[in-house]
């Protein structure tokens, strides 16, 4: 009599197994013969499904190449790729920032990029030695000074990060120290000016009673409400907010000085070295990068995320200048991977716990 109760669990279990095997297959049968008919590749995407799934779908329609995607955080996926080594099933890694790409490049995980691809974007957005193995940017994320248009005369805005420390800005600056893009800027500063100058700048910023926020969005909100006059953020937050709420008193200013304030970071991709890779899968992965750098996809990124297109001939996002007017950038993005050292420095300066 008591057994009836267990029957429920057993049936549920069997049903689960059944649904699963219907669903995606317990194994990976499609790796076999079917793969040769229509090539299929695996992508690890550190960019979200909402954003890039439509791009992959368009690619599948256009080329007939099947794309299987694992979505995850860029850092988690990078850790997994490092753990997998050349046993990885991934053919391509699409990352949200250059730091993770640089770490994988250092570990020798990327295949060479053909010159036809490399030439599509400015050299500053391709990793050094990409012909021997490296990554390429697919969209640009610029540092910007977001300012309250009611409180600030744009002509008076600081042209460099040093200018932010001027006494007229004391108590009027907001920044998100725990945010990855702010930390990337500090990494760039270290690579350019050395640790000593960087820590001095951070300490001076803190001493000027600059206010800290949890993230870029909160920083931009604080600027919009007038809580602070300017904020050190990435460029797309203000653009996104303006698109949602036209008339907000915020605008972006792009520093042009030859320092980390003019950093343009990227979201980028690289083709993985892997044991199971064939000419067909390598070619398919390169085709996907070419598709990411096509006019239609670049325009899509600009419209959806307000990021800068990296190829010539595509309009910049609404409300932003052309990329060549942003960033003085002689920064090597490959030097931004020492985030650990940056975090240690920031906590020594007292801007992070």
């Amino acid at each position, binding site marked *: 009599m008591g057994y009836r109760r267990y029957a429920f669990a057993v049936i549920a*279990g069997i049903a689960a197994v059944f649904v699963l095997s219907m669903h995606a297959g317990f194994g*990976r049968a499609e790796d076999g013969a079917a793969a040769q008919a229509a090539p299929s590749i695996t992508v690890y995407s550190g960019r979200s499904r909402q954003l890039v799934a439509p791009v992959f779908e368009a690619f599948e329609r256009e080329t007939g190449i099947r794309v*299987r995607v*694992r979505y995850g955080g860029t850092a*988690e996926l990078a850790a997994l790729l490092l753990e997998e080594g050349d046993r990885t099933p991934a053919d391509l890694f699409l990352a949200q920032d250059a730091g993770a790409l640089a770490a994988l490049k250092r570990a020798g995980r990327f295949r060479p990029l053909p010159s036809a691809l490399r030439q599509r974007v400015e050299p500053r957005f391709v990793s050094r030695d990409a012909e021997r193995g490296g990554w390429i940017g697919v969209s640009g994320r610029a540092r910007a000074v977001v300012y309250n248009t009611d409180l600030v005369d744009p002509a008076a805005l600081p042209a460099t990060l040093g200018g932010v420390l001027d006494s007229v800005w004391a108590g009027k600056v907001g920044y998100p120290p725990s945010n990855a893009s702010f930390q990337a800027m500090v990494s760039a500063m270290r690579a350019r000016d050395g640790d000593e100058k960087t820590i001095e700048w951070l300490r001076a910023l803190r001493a000027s009673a600059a206010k800290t926020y949890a993230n870029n969005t909160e920083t931009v909100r604080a600027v919009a409400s007038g809580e602070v006059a300017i904020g050190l953020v990435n460029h797309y937050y203000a653009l996104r907010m303006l698109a949602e709420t036209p008339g907000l008193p915020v605008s972006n200013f792009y520093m042009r000085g030859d320092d980390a304030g003019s950093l343009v970071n990227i979201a980028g991709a690289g083709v993985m070295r892997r044991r199971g890779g064939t000419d067909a899968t390598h070619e398919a992965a390169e085709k996907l990068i070419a598709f990411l750098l096509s006019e239609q996809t670049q325009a899509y990124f600009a419209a959806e995320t307000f990021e800068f297109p990296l190829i010539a001939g595509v309009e910049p996002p609404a409300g932003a200048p052309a990329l060549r007017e942003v960033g003085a950038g002689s920064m090597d993005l490959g030097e931004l991977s020492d985030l650990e050292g940056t975090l240690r420095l920031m906590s020594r300066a007292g801007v992070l716990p």
Partner: protein
Amino acid sequence: MDTGGAAVLRTGESGRFLPERTRRAPVALVIGGSVVGVLAALPVVYLLVRAFEAGGGELFETLRRPGLLVLVLRTAALAGVVAGASVAIAFALAVLTAATDLPMRRLSSVVSVLPLAVPCYVGASAVVGLSGPGGVFEGMGAVRGFWAAAIVLTLFIFPLAYLPLRASISRVDPRLIDAARSLGESGLGATLRVILAWSWPACVGGGVLVGLYTLGEFGAVTMLRCDTLTAVIYEQYRSSFSRTGAAVSSLLLVVLVLACLGVGGLLRRRGSWSSGRGSSRGGVTLKLGAWRWPAFALVMLIGAGPVLLVVLTLLSWLGYEGGAGGVGGGLWSGAATSASVAIAAGVACVLMTAPAAVLAARYPGRVSGLVERAVSTGFALPGIVVALGLAFFALRATPFAYQTWGLVVAAFVVLFAAQSLMALRASLERSPVRLEEAARTLGRGPVGAFVGVTLPGLAPGIGAAWVLVTLSAMKELPAMLLLSPAGSVSLAELVWSSTREAMFASAAAPGLALIGVSAGLVWLVAMREGLT
């Protein structure tokens, strides 16, 4: 089925039944019980490999990190506070729903488990949303920090302690209360003391479980900006990519787990006594009188209040532009995948931990102790560590199983076996051994006696074990993201990937679906498995 005679109160040296300690466990049971322990220990082996591969240098570098002690203490304090508060709430609700004439007891019981349907990261993001600009609590100041994290975690995970307590209290031996009365103790206080003493192992077990969960929690603590060891482990994966620092911090977490178990062991010993005969038909019903409806309202407030708050918040996000879209057809296949993997993980977990639970309850000893530690460690380790550890072994030993659902289920067993083990063990410890022995003297074999006599009484425990694991698996994120076959969709991933881009609106639909499917599971099991 009167076992005859009055209940015997006895304080054993370790609070266990005497006869079993003198018997040796069957070899098959020891092997069967160890399997889950070995599986759960794999991530720790992986961590040792990663922590020491770069030599001792980075190990000491990490251990010398400034502020590490504060971090460890804060993590331990959070686990302690959340565990204590959860047990207090769970005990009150369990008494009300299992030992009183509360109206609508079945509904109350279900509602008391309901908070488990809400992932802590969703609860936290709702709280952050509500206290932010435009939120209901705007102006109360940002809800952040230690106490915010403690309150949010308590509100959403106390059912981890409620389920075992409920199972235990529903079997309180009424003769104990009679005995207390006959000794001149009377009144509500005495009754509660008896119930507390009776359910003490469940209190401690549930508290330890909540504490372990808190140690490994990531989403809510980071969202509420209460840095714990787990948050730092994620930070290290993000910042160094070297995996050594993260491995060292994870090993520190393992030390905290062992400390947590140690405290649990001390507490268990201190307050434990048991009824020598056990009781299979127990249960008491206190009369609440005029307090019946206020008590009912309290249960609803604690159980359904936070859930309702989160659901309403998500519904309001759904109203925003783009709230209903963005996910589209992925929602259904995500729901199907999440539910099937979670159900399979629940069944696998119960089956794999059953021998370990019998071993722990009937033949406690060194092996069962080690299994318990291994399984508890798996529960407290962050999902990313377990996922990377299993990837490490699967790629080397069973490459054919890599990136299959089988490996995801294995990861869920590592992560959640502790819940199943605890529920099964508590239930076994309260079932009368003597009946099983009687069956054996009447000619049944050991397995036949167990299946025929003990198993039917374990239904609530099995149900509880299955619910706990299935719900946790539904909500789990990192292992699902890293180990599932590429191309699959899960609800947790849909929620996560939208909150990540601060597109809260598109997180609403999958978030609601996740809560809905989980709540449906709670309901189903509460109705079918006799939780009530």
